[in-house]
């Protein structure tokens, strides 16, 4: 049994939140989390455990870290400091030290499955490059087919752009294919491509230039392009853009 399955079973009230991370060569990804449970439940001594499970692109677990977080304090979890040389998806939950279902004096209803809010900071060496909050929760269902649109605007400072797909769900079955249609502002299809769909807990990074041979030319010609993504997507893709200087920016859509 994987750690993700084990902890999901052990803490059924809590649902892992996920995010893309990269920790290859000098790149690092650092989770930062603040324990907000004590102020939310008005229990001053309510500490928690932050459980971070790192998966590589193939969905295999490559590291698990359990950090104790005192009430009202924050913690940082660095993939590089854990010795991880991979990129993929990290699943994170913060589990309070006490059963939150036993608290009587709260003025709100608790969600059926409590997720965890955190931030992911991307570093190149010691220099922070980008920052983003957590993304989709980890589920147990087979992803359904759906459509997502991504807009692209030409910018002469951007040397490369693309999408990061993560599959934050534990399922067995056919992941199908992901179909891409590249359209100009008039809605005319100027390119298409497809890739294999994502299996459970895997990650896939694709650049538009890899997908569409004519991408660079049509982007300059059209200035605005829209990518229609059709497939069994467990999560909306993230976009990534690389500056000509080497700086990069990753974000949810």
């Amino acid at each position, binding site marked *: 049994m994987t750690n993700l399955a084990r902890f999901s079973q052990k803490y059924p009230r809590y649902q892992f939140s996920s995010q893309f991370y990269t920790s290859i060569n000098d790149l690092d990804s650092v989770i930062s989390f603040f324990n907000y449970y004590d102020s939310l439940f008005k229990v001053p001594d309510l500490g928690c455990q932050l459980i971070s499970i790192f998966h590589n692109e193939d969905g295999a677990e490559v590291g698990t870290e359990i950090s104790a977080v005192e009430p009202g*304090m924050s913690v940082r979890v660095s993939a590089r400091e854990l010795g991880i040389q991979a990129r993929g998806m990290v699943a994170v939950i913060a589990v309070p030290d006490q059963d939150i279902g036993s608290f009587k004096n709260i003025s709100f209803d608790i969600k059926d499955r409590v997720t965890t809010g955190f931030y992911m900071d991307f570093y190149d060496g010691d220099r922070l490059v980008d920052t983003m909050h957590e993304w989709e929760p980890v589920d147990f269902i087979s992803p359904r087919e759906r459509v997502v649109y991504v807009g692209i605007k030409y910018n002469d400072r951007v040397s490369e752009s693309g999408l990061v797909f993560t599959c934050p769900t534990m399922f067995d079955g056919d992941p199908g294919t992901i179909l891409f249609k590249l359209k100009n502002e008039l809605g005319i299809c100027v390119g298409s491509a497809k890739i294999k769909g994502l299996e459970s807990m895997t990650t896939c990074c694709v650049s538009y230039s890899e997908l569409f041979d004519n991408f660079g030319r049509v982007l300059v010609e059209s200035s605005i392009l829209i990518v229609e993504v059709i497939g069994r997507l467990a999560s909306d893709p993230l976009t990534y853009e690389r500056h000509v200087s080497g700086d990069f920016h990753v974000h949810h859509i």
Partner: protein
Amino acid sequence: MRHYWKRHQPRTNLPVFGDVLNEVSFVVQPERRSSLRVLLSPLFRFMARGLPWKIFLDDCRHVLFPKPYFFSFVYISSSGEEYGVHEKFGPYREGDFFYLNINSWMVANGINQKEGNLIIFANRGRPDRWQSSPGNVEIRYTNQKYIAGFRTGFFARPLNEAGKIHLGYRGVNPGVVCNAARVSGILLINHSSNPLYSTSVSPVVRLYRPDGQYLESEFGSISPHSFVEKSIPQLFSGWKEFLRPCGGRGFTIASLEGFTLASMHTVRDERGNLVAIEHSRPGPANVIKFR
């Protein structure tokens, strides 16, 4: 400020910086109109939350006959000048891409105040929930060296206006970094759902070390519908010695009584260039079941 937006229209605040290219965009995602759950959702919310009849009827109308999206905005410069746009950008339907180059718009309109708050608003939210966010809007910042930005939703709920009582605001940045190459900052927006909102606010910020010790500083006044960004060194003169034992890392808590704020975490390089930015997220949203 004049009544640029109506109360039900979802809106969001986007900081505009003077030393970067500021680009705003929005892609209309597929709308879930066909399922029974979506069709019945206005009735469910009406019964569960006791919403006013008008909102219920508007929700029903938009589920059955959704209008395309239109966008408009007002720009409040850092010195308080107001530049409203009377034009509506649209219509935008599923798969359409709204794009706005703020720098070009400023040049075309003779606006010299290059830093300020852009309040962008849509004519409606999702068809099954008229006062919700229609999706995520992006602002992308680029200069000679860096690319940064964030995406965030729109909000139509009452904020900082009469009839809405806020206990206060607490914004946490758990990943503060201060070293020779990077400096974290706090950007706070004194927003409101009421265009006539006229209250300035003055939050307090604490800079914590992992051992629990902290420094405290007044953030300074933020004008209505405006933002102020301050770096850790600007807020805490003794930051270097304070954070030295923990390698320049810590976390901040900004707080304010009686009002709510929107906040961003910024990171700039040693020359003040924007490297990264992200909006903060309310921790309670992970725990509380909102109806």
